[in-house]
């Protein structure tokens, strides 16, 4: 059978997705495929277009490798616009030739609408849709000081942010009375305006531009309906999009009244040889200006071309986005104007600048829509109620009150079978259950079977909870393996390491695992090895196992620089040492801050500066503070009996003693201590993993407290201990935790999952019920005996220092680390 010729017009996101689908379904065996792209770039990620200004280039935005089309036998004709379709002859025509087709797909997308304003075609009046547009904006911005975006919708705000990033004084002019009129209402729009004005962007709403003429102080002058004027050097129009239906119009395909190529459920146009997908297509009188519905159309179109059955059933336009750092979310009928009898709930916090609104059916049972400004953490739960038609709680308002009010969370078993779990791939809870019943026995298998969570990944947590709960309901023991490379739990690996005396990751994985390992098992094993043997983590065998923070013994910041936290045991520091920190901070231009853990953090050091900085700190007597490690952080202290009129013991002395004893101890998660000098508890010891509070007779020992995300009060383990017993109990407690906890489990969570609870810990630590006490203590002693400041160790070894080069073939610093000054110090720009 000879092959048919398939032509795709448009190499945008949707056209490209269609080609990928064609390849996946082996449709290249029945079709010769030619793809036309008018732009000079092959398909790229338009959704992340703005990142082009943030440093991404055309290459990294591209949706595929340069040779992808050729490698799959597909002809890609870039820089070539189709100018006409001759349906009678089944040909498409470009300025370079005429090409016959058997089947034709229109994926021509849309173009930015420029309102017909006199002067709207002046130079430096631009749009925001393609890479070339962005190049033009960048070029124009070189000679401009000010910029205006016409249109305050989603894309307009994105464009405004881009102008701001190009250092232009930026204003947004919106015709409607508020910003983002499609997504938010008056209150929401007001809040949004405040937030955006706080960022230094001027917002003008309710303004219709009448004409654009020569400016007096700037290049343009915009004249509004009320004769007010605004001068600016550069204008970007972002006043909506219009489908690119000109080819279809010329060849008389059916169009919608207001444009758009009419398609049916199979993505067929009025000519069954021709299909249309993406933003140029009009389905059920709607254009879908988002990429996900376009992808669905692409799948349906491929199915139609290969005699499949699937149909396009519309798409949900709910969106959750962050614009200039501001959360905005809109679900369903967010305005409530599609359901006249709907009832609304609103929550407005003018101080935190948060606004939330619920649109609820008249009987109060169903969620019809929702609107969020300022905090999108409510989105996922609301989306579940909305998309699954779940019955709302008796008081729906609880869903948008601040979380502390205890909004009921939706457990996975509360979801019906029809609940959509993954919206990218349209996977319901029912489909997940079916996959499990058909033999998918773990999360990975369910993912492979259903494709759930392989799109944006936003559903990962939900998917996992559904899978775990369904597996448990079927009596399947949920696989606790640490990762795909070891069929063991962390505790089992710990025992293996200890019993077999294994000292390297490579030996462990050779004997008990497979593959190369990963970013889950490597750091976990590194931590186990350190807890057992405490060899320097900078040894060649251990270096590749560490998270970057441990590798470079500093904390990576968002721009790739590092922060440095020297140890200040108990928070006590001499004025001389303080001066050194000041000098080092000044010399290397580091942002300096007092931490919440009673010490000093120096931010913004480049990788190659770390050794020099540490040399100076070590010379002044500092040691590493392990702020980067899953290890002992700080022992906070209050001033205690040496100064305080209420103090009953020397809390600073004890804090320093404890910090020096346990520094460098690596553990499943970080460990924090505090010591208070009396019951007034100024050191907040009851919120720490290990808390010590002085009594008239000695020390009370508290364990398993936590601040952070889920605060937990520590529990009293023992009272009135002398110094020696206190230390002995802490030795045992910590080592028992190190042996038995899961990876990344703080003592508080470990304690909550420990069968037998506090009584069990008391039994082991105080009564030695397992006969382990001596073993635990001697293991702790090994760790303590092997302690060496990691930085001191690294600094004297040129081999180890080689690791601290930003680039191995060049001294020049990373040019993308850009800083700006704020309150007299530098911070990332």
């Amino acid at each position, binding site marked *: 059978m000879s092959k048919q010729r398939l032509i795709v017009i448009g190499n945008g996101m949707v056209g490209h997705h269609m080609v990928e689908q064609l390849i996946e379904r082996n449709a290249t065996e029945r079709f010769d495929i030619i793809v036309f792209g008018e732009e000079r770039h092959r398909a790229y*990620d338009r*959704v*992340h277009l703005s*990142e082009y200004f*943030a*440093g*991404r*280039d055309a*290459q*990294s935005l*591209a*949706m*595929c*490798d*340069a040779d992808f089309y050729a490698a799959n036998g597909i002809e890609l004709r870039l820089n070539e616009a189709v100018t006409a379709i001759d349906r009678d002859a089944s040909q498409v025509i470009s300025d370079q030739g005429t090409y016959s087709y058997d089947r034709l797909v229109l994926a021509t997308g849309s173009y930015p609408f420029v309102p017909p304003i006199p002067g709207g075609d002046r130079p430096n009046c631009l749009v925001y849709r393609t890479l070339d547009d962005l190049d033009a904006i960048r070029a124009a911005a070189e000679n401009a000081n000010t910029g205006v975006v016409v249109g305050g919708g989603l894309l307009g705000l994105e464009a405004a942010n881009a102008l701001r990033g190009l250092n232009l004084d930026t204003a947004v002019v919106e015709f409607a009375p508020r910003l983002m009129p499609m997504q938010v209402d008056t209150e929401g729009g007001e809040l949004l305006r405040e937030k955006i004005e706080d960022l230094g962007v001027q917002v003008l709403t309710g303004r219709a531009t009448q004409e654009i003429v020569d400016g007096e102080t700037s290049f343009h002058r915009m004249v509004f309906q009320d004769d007010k004027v605004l001068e600016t050097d550069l204008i970007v129009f972002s006043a909506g999009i219009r489908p690119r239906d000109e080819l279809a119009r010329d060849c008389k395909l059916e169009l919608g009244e207001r444009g758009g190529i009419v398609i049916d459920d199979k993505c067929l146009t009025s000519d069954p040889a021709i299909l249309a997908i993406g933003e140029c297509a009009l389905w059920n009188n709607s254009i879908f200006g988002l990429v996900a519905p376009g992808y669905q159309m692409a799948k349906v179109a491929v199915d139609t071309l290969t005699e499949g059955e699937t149909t396009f059933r519309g798409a949900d336009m709910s969106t959750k986005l962050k614009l200039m750092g501001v959360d905005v979310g809109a679900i369903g009928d967010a305005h409530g104007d599609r359901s006249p009898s709907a009832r609304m709930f609103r929550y407005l916090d003018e101080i935190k600048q948060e606004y939330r609104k619920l649109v609820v059916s008249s009987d109060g049972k169903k969620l019809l829509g929702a609107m969020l400004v300022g905090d999108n953490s409510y989105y996922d739960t609301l989306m579940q109620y909305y998309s699954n038609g779940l019955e709302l709680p008796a008081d729906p308002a609880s869903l948008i009150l601040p979380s502390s009010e205890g909004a009921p969370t939706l457990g996975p078993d509360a979801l019906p079978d029809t609940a959509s779990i993954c919206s990218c791939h349209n996977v319901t809870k029912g489909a997940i259950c079916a996959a499990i019943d058909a033999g998918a026995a773990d999360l*990975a298998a369910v993912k492979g079977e259903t494709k759930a969570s*392989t*799109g*944006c*990944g936003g559903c990962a947590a939900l998917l996992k909870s559904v899978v775990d709960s369904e597996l448990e309901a079927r009596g399947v023991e949920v696989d606790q393996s640490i990762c*795909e*490379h070891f069929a063991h739990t962390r505790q089992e690996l710990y025992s293996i390491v200890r019993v077999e005396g294994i000292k390297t990751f490579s030996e462990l994985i050779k004997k008990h695992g497979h*593959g*190369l*390992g*990963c*970013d889950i*098992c*490597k*750091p976990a094993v590194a931590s186990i090895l350190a807890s057992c043997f405490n060899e320097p983590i900078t040894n*060649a065998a251990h*270096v*590749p*196992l*560490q*998270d*970057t923070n441990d*590798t*470079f013994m500093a904390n*990576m910041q*968002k*721009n*790739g620089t590092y922060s440095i936290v020297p140890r200040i045991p108990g928070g006590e520091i001499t004025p001389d040492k303080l001066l050194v920190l000041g000098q080092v901070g000044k010399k290397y231009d580091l942002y300096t801050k007092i931490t919440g853990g009673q010490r000093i953090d120096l931010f913004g050091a480049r*990788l190659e500066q770390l050794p020099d900085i540490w040399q100076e700190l070590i010379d002044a007597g500092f040691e590493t503070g392990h702020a980067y490690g899953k290890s002992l952080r700080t022992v906070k202290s209050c001033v205690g009996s040496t100064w305080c009129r209420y103090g009953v013991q020397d809390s600073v002395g004890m804090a320093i003693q404890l910090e020096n004893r346990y520094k460098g101890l690596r553990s499943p998660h970080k460990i924090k201590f505090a010591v208070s000098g009396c019951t007034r508890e100024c050191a907040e010891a009851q919120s720490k993993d290990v808390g010590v509070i002085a009594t008239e007779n000695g020390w009370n020992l508290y364990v398993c407290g936590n601040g952070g995300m889920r605060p937990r009060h520590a529990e009293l383990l023992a009272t009135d201990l002398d110094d020696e017993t206190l230390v002995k109990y802490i030795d045992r407690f910590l080592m028992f935790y190190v042996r038995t906890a899961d990876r990344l489990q703080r003592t508080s969570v470990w304690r909550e999952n420990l069968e037998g609870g506090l009584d069990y810990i008391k039994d082991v630590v105080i009564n030695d019920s397992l006969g382990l006490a001596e073993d635990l203590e001697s293991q702790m002693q090994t760790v303590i005996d092997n302690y060496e400041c990691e930085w001191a160790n690294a600094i004297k070894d040129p081999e180890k220092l*080689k*690791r601290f*080069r*930003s*680039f*191995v*073939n*060049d*001294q*020049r610093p*990373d040019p*993308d680390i850009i800083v700006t000054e704020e309150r007299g110090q530098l911070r990332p720009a």
Partner: protein
Amino acid sequence: MSTATALKSKTGTDVNWQALCTWADLVEFSGVAAWLETETGPAQVALFYIPGYETELFAVDNHDPLGKANVIARGIIGDVKGEPVVASPLYKQHYRLKDGRCVEDDSVKLRTWPVRFDGDQVMVKLSH
């Protein structure tokens, strides 16, 4: 200076292969970053070295498009179902070392370059 290396390789046999560094600059089972002079300007390349593995050397973009910083060389390497990957140190997405694809997000991709040893030299081929 990398410009010097670029010049040196240009006088070699294949102008498209540049010597970036030597074997001793690499870190076993981990990555280092190096500058590469391309036609469109200097690029930061992350070089990963997995001795004994079927492919021992990989060269991918050092820029993390999701974390938006030049840090890929500082990630942990491993495999996802046998496919070698690097985990970004910032937000832990995995990028496939062979083709740069992001495992968690199909639409994101790192540039990759052909790379090989030439004696002690690590050679990277300029790709278009």
